[in-house]
């Protein structure tokens, strides 16, 4: 499946050729980096609150109202720019172990988010006001930080393998 010519054909699409041959590539690359730092920065603040490490004076909900929109907007920019970069060398990227790790860790981060959601819905109202957040929730916050740091390492390592 990873050897399929579909990946190679992606590289010959009009869009991929435009990005790969012009200054669009560095532009996408730098926007990718900036959007990731903004997304993970906001996520860092939220996850540190969930883990009970920082900003304990606020209920989790106050912070999630402040940050969630920014996180998702930055994530969308990162995905769009990331896809733009990906299609310029798709066939090589899918075989790149660093890229494979990155995708796996991102999948796990998504699953971790679902676990957090299910768990927080089951807890009684007002759990997020408490100074001591339940252990299971704190662990999802911690896992999120570690997984996303791994995603970043995988992403940075990709460029050293190709």
């Amino acid at each position, binding site marked *: 499946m990873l050897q399929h010519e579909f990946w190679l054909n992606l590289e010959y699409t009009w869009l991929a050729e435009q990005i790969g041959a012009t*200054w669009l*590539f*560095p532009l996408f*690359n*730098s*926007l990718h*980096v*900036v959007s*990731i*730092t*903004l997304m*993970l*920065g*906001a996520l*860092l*603040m939220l996850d540190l609150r969930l883990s009970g490490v*920082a*900003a304990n*004076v*606020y209920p989790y909900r*106050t*912070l999630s*109202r*402040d940050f969630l929109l*920014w996180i998702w907007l930055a994530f969308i920019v990162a995905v769009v720019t990331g896809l733009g970069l990906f299609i310029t060398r798709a066939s090589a990227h899918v075989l790149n172990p660093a890229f494979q790790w990155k995708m796996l860790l991102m999948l796990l981060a998504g699953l971790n988010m679902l676990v957090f959601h299910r768990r927080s819905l089951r807890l009684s109202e007002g759990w997020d006001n408490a100074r001591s957040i339940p252990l299971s929730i704190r662990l999802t916050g911690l896992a999120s930080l570690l997984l996303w*740091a791994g995603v*970043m*390492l995988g992403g*940075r*390592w990709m*460029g*050293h393998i190709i």
Partner: protein
Amino acid sequence: MTELSIKLLSTVPGLPPILQTIHLLGLTMLMASAVMMNLRLLNLAGRGQQLQEMLQRLFPWVFWALPVMLLSGLPFLLARPQRYLNNPVFAYKAAFLCLALILTAALWLAFRRGRIQQQTWLVKALALVSLSAWLMTAMSGRWIAYADYLFWPG
């Protein structure tokens, strides 16, 4: 120092991407705090949080992130100084960084003296410049590798 940096970067397995990731994680800490503070000063985000308390909480992150970024970036500069010092994009990055540092230091001093009580137009204007300077520092950092796209040699 140059020899040591070259030796470390070329012999320790995976050191370049690991150092670069630490640089990026430091950037995440720094950008998150700096962007948050400046957006709060501009009243564009985090209105549910008190300004004084937020500055008190976020400034230590800025001060911790800066040495992390310096130490994780310095080996690359030392290993190949001519790659950076002759690169016009690196000069831009240094200029944006200086501007951002000066404005952030000014904000910190004003905060320490209790002068950030209300957001006057001056405070807002400086916050906008500071926010842009941090974003441009990060952008130009990535463009160092792509200087040829901007300044075609010959």
